[in-house]
């Protein structure tokens, strides 16, 4: 699995690691982990709605941070949960850019077995690092 929840990292919140052979895979894994924090079976979220957005940051770490934060924003603002991503990540000078197409559907408690609401991404022990296999991130979510 491209993401794993860490059992004893935090008492009140939710922590996970996400991995990918590429940055796109890493971002996809982390995005799915955010969804999996809120809903028991991510595969039950169909691709009925699409959101396009672009983000930029000074480093890859903060780019992932604001990407995950964007997913949380759409959960509240438009009641959307996402189960698929089409991402393009590039670097120009010192700026990292993300163009995203996020696919999912509106929350339906009758279909999606809901777990817990995610309030925000925390920076506590947050990290993104390159590994021999690709990329790895550790993330803690406030729930």
């Amino acid at each position, binding site marked *: *699995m491209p993401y*794993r*929840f*860490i*059992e*004893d*990292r*935090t*008492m*009140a*919140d*939710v922590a996970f*690691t996400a991995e990918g052979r590429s940055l796109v895979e890493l971002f996809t894994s982390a995005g799915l982990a955010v969804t*999996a924090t*809120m*809903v*028991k079976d991510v595969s039950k979220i169909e691709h009925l709605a699409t959101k396009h957005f672009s983000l930029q940051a000074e480093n890859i770490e*903060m780019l992932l941070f*604001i990407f995950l*934060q964007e997913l*949380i*924003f759409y*959960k*509240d*603002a438009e*009641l959307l*949960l996402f189960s698929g991503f089409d991402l393009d990540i590039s670097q120009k000078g010192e700026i990292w850019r993300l163009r995203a197409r996020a696919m999912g559907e*509106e*929350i339906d*408690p009758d279909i999606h*077995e*809901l*777990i*817990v*609401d995610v*309030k*925000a*991404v*925390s*920076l*506590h*022990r*947050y990290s993104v690092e390159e590994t021999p296999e690709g990329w790895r991130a550790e993330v*803690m979510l*406030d*729930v």
Partner: protein
Amino acid sequence: METVKEESKIQKPAFIKISDVVWDIPSDFKHGMRVPARIIATRKLIETMDLTVYDQITNVATLPGIQRYAFCMPDGHSGYGFPIGGVAAFDVNEGGVISPGGIGFDINCGMRLVLTNLTRDEVTPHLRTLVEKLFRSVPAGVGSRGFVRLSKEEFRDKVAMQGARWAVSEGYGWREDLERTELGGRASWADSSKVSQKAIDRGFNQIGTLGSGNHYLEIQWLKPENIFNEKLAAKWGLFPDQIVVMFHCGSRGFGHQVATDYLLLFLSVMERKYGIKILDRELACAPFFSPEGQNYFRAMGCAVNMSFANRQVILHRIREVFSEVFGKGPEKLGLHMLFDISHNRGTFEKHDVDGKVKELIVHRKGATGSYHPGREEIPEYYRKDGSPVIIGGSMETGSYLLVGGPKSPDTFCSTAHGSGRTMSRTKARKMVRGSELLRELEGKGIYIRTASYAGVAEEAGFAYKNIDDVVEAAAIAGISLPVAKLVPIGNVKG
């Protein structure tokens, strides 16, 4: 769901015992500590706190302008940045900082306690109906929206600026409710021009919703033997065998976005502009009197107002449901509010520090204001008594009403806010199925309706400390004294 366990690498500090419930970690424990850390706990509680608490509270002790101690309350457990149960006060006139990580993402998350004139015998036949109707009237869980319809402009101009006063002016409540709410239900320092459009977009349709996680709405029973201060209980409208309603929620997506916006802003200016270095980026901060610090303080005030408005609208819904079920108006059912109190806020207060009165920004993250009699922060209605303090427990064990104690100045007028977790959410979910837990609790006389079975399992009583131990520690320390314990009989779980 795949999970992995983690072993802690944090060393347990050598505590200096000050008394049976006061333990210090000296400032030479960690490089950069400006003050010692002080834990308020019995030996039993301190031995069960997770080690991350000590790491986090000593990180807090390194922040500029911190006064006397970085405190951790008896329900302390690991959080992000500050531990939950963390209290720190910063002198705003000596470069003291303000930090979103010391207030929490759920700004002004808090508790509200509502009285009734009903007894258990009168409510029991209607309990299921009440819980079912409350579940429908007060939306809970991921992606819930409230019934209040208003434009984003109205939210920015009115809700974010006026808080519970807006709600009462719209007919969602009574004038007296404001007199029994901290700050009169409105953060006067709020300025909605300091709030992003994104925050408005996230939260404007969530007024009147509980949220999820440890948020709940509970019907509780005051057993006769659970009154510990008869005089004050009677004065505040409590009587043996009474049914009351308690709920716990905050500023929803609006507050979460305000905190995130300013966390990112502070990170970008903290070191470059103000030369502040921190040990955990979640402690990002700025001097209180800097432009960024002031903007956050004013935006945070808007989130305080959203949470007051949210709880006020929920109170209105509770009154509607009880009136419908019992066929009487809310006044006839005695549905008066006892108090509304926050446990996630930064508040500008004056305190005596080593004989000198200082202006402080007091951060309480998972810690409740607990003011001794006479403090100006206490609404006039309660000022001679001390502030009512509500400490919410798990859905199995009960909650407490307390009063600010004589020793509360020792902790900048702060006390615990809940039971405090002893087990992670993922571990709790492995231990029990939500549906089984609901059946078990129903067998014990607690009827629960939930938006999430998995969420219920995460909130199982065994995942928390014993609330009696938490209250005992606060009482021995003299920071807050128990008035009554309230046990659940019905619960709406987010």
